[in-house]
């Protein structure tokens, strides 16, 4: 287990949180979208994280990784919300059904914003970890000076 691998672990955390934030932003942007290529209103999406082994691109020390316990994170799945759309009575709307109701995405702004804050905090924590690992590496190098 080298400190360089820890940099990859932090990077995996950053990219996972970024993927999550991207989907949350997509959900917010499409909160009023009634028409999609699949038909029907937009459905909110969310990520599922899972542990993932990462290796440093430089040090191929796989055997060393096996029992170190240090693992990165990755996006294993993107789940699409299957809840019933919200029906609003708008007879003039081009997407209105014969009964005059339009299907809108089931959107909860508070939920999306709280998740977005979580993603942002998680990203920052990973940046802090990476900075700290970087400092440790630099201090080790400065021993040679």
């Amino acid at each position, binding site marked *: 287990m080298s*400190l360089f691998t820890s940099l990859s672990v932090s990077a995996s*955390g950053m990219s996972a949180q970024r993927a999550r934030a991207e989907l949350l932003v997509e959900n917010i942007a499409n909160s009023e979208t009634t028409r999609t290529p699949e038909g029907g209103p937009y459905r909110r999406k969310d990520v599922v994280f899972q542990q993932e082994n990462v290796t440093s691109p430089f040090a191929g020390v796989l055997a060393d990784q096996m*029992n170190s*316990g240090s693992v*990165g994170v990755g996006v294993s799945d993107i789940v699409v919300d299957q809840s019933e759309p919200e029906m609003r009575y708008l007879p003039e709307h081009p997407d209105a059904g014969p009964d005059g109701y339009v299907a809108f995405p089931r959107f909860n702004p508070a939920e999306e914003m709280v998740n977005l804050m979580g993603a942002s905090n998680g990203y920052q*924590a*990973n940046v802090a*970890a990476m900075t700290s*690992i970087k400092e440790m590496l630099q201090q080790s190098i400065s*021993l040679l000076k």
Partner: protein
Amino acid sequence: MIGQIAQSLGKYMDVLAARQALITSNIANIDTPGYRTLDLNFQQEFQNLLDNGGDVPGAPSEVEGLRIKNDGNNVNMDRELRLLAENSIRFSAASTLAQGQIALVKSAIDSLQG
């Protein structure tokens, strides 16, 4: 004598680095369902390296007594960030001390060249 201090410092930094790697992994997995916080017993691992040699601490264990969230994850961001800062400062102190040890040897060599 100098060699022994430098060696102990080296092992101290090895354990710190191993622990920092675990903290990094805990932070990366802060939202991973089912992930449990990993850590190592610092004093025990350090003592073990001093007594038995080697430079790789043993396998980490799950930390007890942390609140488990609804998704089965028990990473506490505050705990991890505190440990991250603490470890970083300890490492900084150890590397400064090690630098001092190296400077001592260097000055001895320089005085011979005189």
